[in-house]
């Protein structure tokens, strides 16, 4: 199972994402933002960081990187895509996911081990979890406030597209405590917290995040 990880100028967490894929039993494939294709990978991770320096808006310029044309086309055809933090912002800017991420309501960068509740286990990236399962995963972002208009929020809630929710506190003012959402077909998921930093108790708060990466291995086999 080959999982592509895109490196943009300013990506930070591409190596940890590759490590998480390897821990889960997949083969990470490095992709470059300037590439025209995705080297035939089965799924793609857009990692965290500050692509293009977060100029203009977070993810706004990365969305138009050459590799994103192929990622968007393949995502529309059902290829699983996971956007973490800056990757989530890129997926919203690319309109693969609804809503947008704005500056935290507390006006400061937030870095904490965050408790989450898994709400949707039917997505390509969360099938390893149980509904209602609690996870602790690092959150580190300055612009993690999830917003969308009320109609969109109602729609994604009723369609079961809220994938994870903040549980102990709402750290950034996200609407309805939303920490992650999916596309209508459940193949594209975006999250502000960083599961790739929680795959091994040696280097993170635990291994709760590994399930995102094991989930996709079975979902690609099933597809």
């Amino acid at each position: 199972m080959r999982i592509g990880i895109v490196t943009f100028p300013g990506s930070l967490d591409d190596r940890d994402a590759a490590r998480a894929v390897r821990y889960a039993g997949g083969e990470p494939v490095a992709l470059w933002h300037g590439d025209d294709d995705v080297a035939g990978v089965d799924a793609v991770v857009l990692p965290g960081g500050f692509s293009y320096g977060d100029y203009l808006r977070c993810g706004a310029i990365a969305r138009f990187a050459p590799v994103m044309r192929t990622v968007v086309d393949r995502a529309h055809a059902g290829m699983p895509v996971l956007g973490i933090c800056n990757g989530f912002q890129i997926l919203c800017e690319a309109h693969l996911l609804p809503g947008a991420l704005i500056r935290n309501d507390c006006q400061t960068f937030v870095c904490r081990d965050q408790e989450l509740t898994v709400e949707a286990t039917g997505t390509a990236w969360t099938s390893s979890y149980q509904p209602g399962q609690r996870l602790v995963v690092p959150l580190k972002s300055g612009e993690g406030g999830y917003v969308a208009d009320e109609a969109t929020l109602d729609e994604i809630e009723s369609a079961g597209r809220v994938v994870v929710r903040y549980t102990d506190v709402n750290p950034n003012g996200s609407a309805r405590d939303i920490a992650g959402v999916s596309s209508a077909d459940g193949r594209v998921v975006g999250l502000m917290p960083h599961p790739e930093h929680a795959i091994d108790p040696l280097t993170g708060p635990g291994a709760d995040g590994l399930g995102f990466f094991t989930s996709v291995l079975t979902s690609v086999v099933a597809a």
Partner: protein
Amino acid sequence: MSVVVEVMPKPEILDPQGQAVLRALHRLGFTEVTGVRQGKRFELDVDGDVDDAVLDRLEQAASTLLANPVIEEHVVHVGASVHDESA
């Protein structure tokens, strides 16, 4: 010619930057200010005259890249740069 694109957060979107600026203004004694919203202004230089066709194209540029219609509103108009007006 310059074409100006002004981008503002939608009224219903929380603007933490504007709120921080408002508090700083009050600390400085500018208590007559009751609200601040912070946006962006882009000055686009274009060769030749700016006709409706040019403005239509730059409207596309604004709604595609310069503003995110999910959270922001924008206007596109012919204008001078702030530098020229302040000179």
